[in-house]
Each structure stands twice: as C-alpha cells, then as structure tokens.
C-alpha cells in the first residue's frame, strides 16, 4: 500500500512565537545537506492564495522542517534560518510564497569575530567563548589543555572554527537542533552496503583532462 508522506514546517520568529504551516499549504520542500562545513539549504513553496500566508514569516526567522509517513514517525530533517521570502504570482493566477534559507551552520558563516581571548583550557575554551555569542550549543570534547592568547581581527567565525578543528585534528558539525558537535577525526567506516546490477539502473563515466 502506498504510504502518504506527512510534511510539517514550524516557523519561530524573533520574539520566540512558533507557527506551523499546514501540510495542505506546503506545495514543495527541497533541501540540500550541509557538506564540507558549508551550510545546507532549503527551498519551501507555500500556497498563498489570497495572500493568506503573506505575513507568516520574515527573513531571519527560524525554520524546522519535519518529514515522515505517520504522525508518530516524523523526524526533523533540517533546521535553519530564512534568508529570503519571495511572494510570487504565476500566469495561472496562482499565488505562492517561497521561503529560501540555510541550515543552522549559516551562523558560523555569517558571523565575524574580533577581540582577544585568553585561554587556560586549550582551544575548546576558545570555541566555547566564541559560541557564547551565537545560538549554537557546544557538545563533544570540552576538555583540552594549553595556555595562550588568541587575537582575532574581523575573522569569519567559520574560519576560526576550521582552524581550531584543524589544529586539534577534530571535525565539527551543526545538527538540526542547533547543537555544535566537535570530535576527533576518525577514518571513515565501511557502510557494508554493496550495490549490484539489480540496484544500478544506469551509470555514467566522466573522464577529464588535467
């Protein structure tokens, strides 16, 4: 039996008020995952007939996207902030509202930091200090050693985090609940999945000259 997908989008504004967009108003949801520490993206199209949803949200509001098949089995697939709200009207007089934005990692990309931090508990202390100014909550290895001072001059937060992660041979990610994880780099594990002729419908080889 064909399952019916359930879509749910929750929007929280700067005052902390949360509203939900009902499944019937959600015309399409597209997301791309965060890769190589760049933010994931989302693109949501909402039915806006008669301007009914026009005042639902503003740029910088927070978005949670939930997907699943049953009310009890739905899971959050992305959380982030709205960058653009586009109100559109097509030739067939269909009015839609488009919400485009990026995942919570965008906080790292959009923030710049300046100042001086003295640390006595290694780089993890520096990271904790830096994340205090953001909505992200740190989690992972929080005990490191080392004393020193770091001076930052209008540096994107992502560059500082990347640099610290590299010094410590750590990796980091921001999850759907605004939790910033940092942990040691581990070699990739085998997934145990083997694709056979039955699974591969088509393929394409691309050779490029160097």
């Amino acid at each position, binding site marked *: 039996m064909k399952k019916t997908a359930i879509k749910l989008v929750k929007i929280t504004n700067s005052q902390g008020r949360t509203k939900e967009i009902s499944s019937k108003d959600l015309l399409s949801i597209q997301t791309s995952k965060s*890769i*190589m520490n760049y933010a994931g993206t989302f693109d949501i199209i909402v039915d806006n007939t008669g301007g009914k949803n026009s005042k639902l949200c503003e740029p910088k509001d927070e978005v949670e996207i939930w997907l699943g098949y049953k009310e009890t089995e739905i899971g959050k697939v992305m959380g982030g902030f709205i960058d653009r709200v586009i109100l559109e009207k097509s030739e067939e007089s269909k009015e839609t509202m488009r919400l485009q934005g990026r995942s919570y990692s965008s906080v790292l990309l*959009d923030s*710049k930091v300046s100042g*001086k931090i003295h640390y006595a508990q290694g780089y993890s202390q520096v990271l904790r200090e830096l994340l205090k100014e953001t909505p992200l909550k740190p989690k992972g290895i929080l005990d490191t050693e*080392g*004393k*020193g*001072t*770091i*001076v*930052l*001059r*209008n*540096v994107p937060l992502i*560059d*500082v985090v990347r*640099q610290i992660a*590299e010094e410590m*041979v750590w*990796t980091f990610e921001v999850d759907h609940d605004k939790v910033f994880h940092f942990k040691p*780099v581990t*070699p*990739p594990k085998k997934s145990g999945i083997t694709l056979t002729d039955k699974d591969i419908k088509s393929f394409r080889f691309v050779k490029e000259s160097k």
Partner: protein
Amino acid sequence: MISNLDRMIPVDVKAEMEEYEVFLLLCGVWLHDIGMLVKRKGESLAQVRDVHHKRGRQLIRTSLDKLDLTDDERYVVGEMAYYHRKTEDLSNVKEIMEIQHDSIVSKVRPQFLCALLRLADGCEVAHSRSSRELVEIAGIDDEARFHHEAHLHVSGVGFDPITHEITVFLRVKKQEDAELLTNFLRSSLEKELSSVKEVLKRNGIDYSSVQCDVTLDQYAREMPRVPIKVKEMSIEEKLAELERRTGYYPSMLIDEGRRIHVFYETISQTRKELQNEIVAVLEKIWNLFPEKKIVILTTNKIHDPRGTIGESDPEIITVGSKREEFEGYQQESIDKRELWNKLVFFRKVSTDQFHKIRVKANWPLVV
C-alpha cells in the same frame, strides 16, 4: 570621488541610471563621512573613525534639519554612509526601493549605490586626497601618517571596464618603497573590491583585479620608516604594525608563550611572488616578536587557486620557522636559499571526502 565614480561606471550602465538615482549617489558622496565630525570627549581619531559610519547614518536620518531630503531619501543616503565601511555586510541593504518624489515614482537600488560609493571611496588614494602640509603640521598618528604618505605617492587611479582591471599609478624613489606600497595598496583595494564585486556585477559593472603601475623616480620622496619600540607594544599594536609594514591584513594570531601562529591572506599570483613574500613577512614577524622561539605562518591564497606548488597546489600553506635560523639569515651567515631549506612547509590534503589534515610538503625555492 565624483571623478572616480564617473570613470568607474561604464557608459552603458550610466545611461541606465535614473537622474534621481544619480542625485542620491551624489548626496551619499557629500555626506558619507559626516560622522567624522562627531567627536566625544576623550576619543582618539581612530576611535572616531571606527564608529563614524554609524554616527553618520544616525545624523542623516534624525538630524541635519537643513537637508532638504525626504524620509526615504534620508534612509537611502544613511545606508550609503553606514555601508561605505567595508567591515559592514552589503547583503543587509535593500536591493530595490520605490521612492515617490514630487509626482514621480523612481526605482532606486540602495545596495548598488552603497557598493559604488564604497569602491569609489576605497579608490580615493591619489595624491590629491592628501597634502604634504597636513602630514607635516597636523600632528597625526603614525598610522594616519603612513596612509597620507602612501597617497602622496599615488599619481592616479585608472578603471578599465574592458580588461576588468583597476590600476593604481605609483611614483616612488626606491624599489623597496614600490614593494611596500604595491603590497599595501593592492591588498587594501582588493579587499574593498571583493566586498562589492558581486553587487556591482549584478548591476553591469565588472572589475576583477587591482594592478599597480610603478614608475621609479629619483626625485620622488622616500617613504618614512617610523622608529618603533617593539617591547612597549601590545599584540594588537604589533599586528597593526605588521599590516603597515607588509600591506597584508593579519586576521588571527595565536600566542602560546614560546610559539606564535599568524594567519593572513595573500594576493600573490605566482609561486615566486609568494615565496619572496613569505620570507619578507616572516622577517617582519621575527622583528616584531623577538622573544619568541618559533613562528608559524599560515597564508590563505584568496585569488588564483591555480599554481603555487605544481600538482599539489595548496589553497592554504603553513610555514614553520625557528629563531636561530632567522638570526643566521639576518646576520648573513646563511643566504635565502639555505634559510628556505630550513623552513618546514605543510599543506592540506584530504584523508577522505570530508576531512583535511596537514602534511609536510616539499616546496623548493624558485630560482
């Protein structure tokens, strides 16, 4: 600045600008630095400069009753005053506004106007901006003095929309001054340009690089070398001094007692340029931090991602150096090649799709 704008904006783009938009742009030109007039008790010139864009916007929007501008006009001109500082993010400015004036409604592009003003202001580096008398008598601080002296060596700035180049024409006495000023001016203008490039491109103006055209002239004045007392300087002052001496912007420094790690972005285009620059920057760091035992330098290549060390070209290269090696080089007991061979280079490589680590790299000095 108006002359810069006139030459910077190509004819076809100018033709598409409404008269009203040009009017607002000129208002921005006249008023963008008005915040410099507000100086609170005890504030230094540098502190005033740091906040003048905020104060300027405030003044334009809420005071200056004699300005015969509407609220919408004050809004746009205020945005120009605020966003002419390159530290502010232009993506926060509205792309398009419709403003009613008299009985007409005009489309105005505030973000585009802010980008134009920022670049024109950044390119305001020619000698006409400064005067020898001001440098001599005004009692300005060393940093401001350096900027004024730098401007006095610039004979003009050219804009070529066909080759997409901005050219700074320099007249200097010595090769050493040429390098100092080329580094300083190119680096500062490149940063200015990269902060507005996308906005300008969307509006039909495409500049992609900054070049310096140097004329050596024995009658030109030598750039001043201000004696400084390194021991009395804070880390922040040392970084500012490093920026002044190299023309590059050190964005981050980690001080761990015996060891310091400095990060900056290079604009060198070739391997030879980058290698010479690394030795020069290291030398200046050693002079500013004589008490350290180890200096580590990480440089991000922000321009042409092709080509510095062949097949294994890094976007980011890290160099490690010890004090005794540099002392040997400064005392001329070893030459540049010997010094180079003692430095340790690291570059980033992927261990898999996501994780990059640093590995030692062999990077011979270019002859």
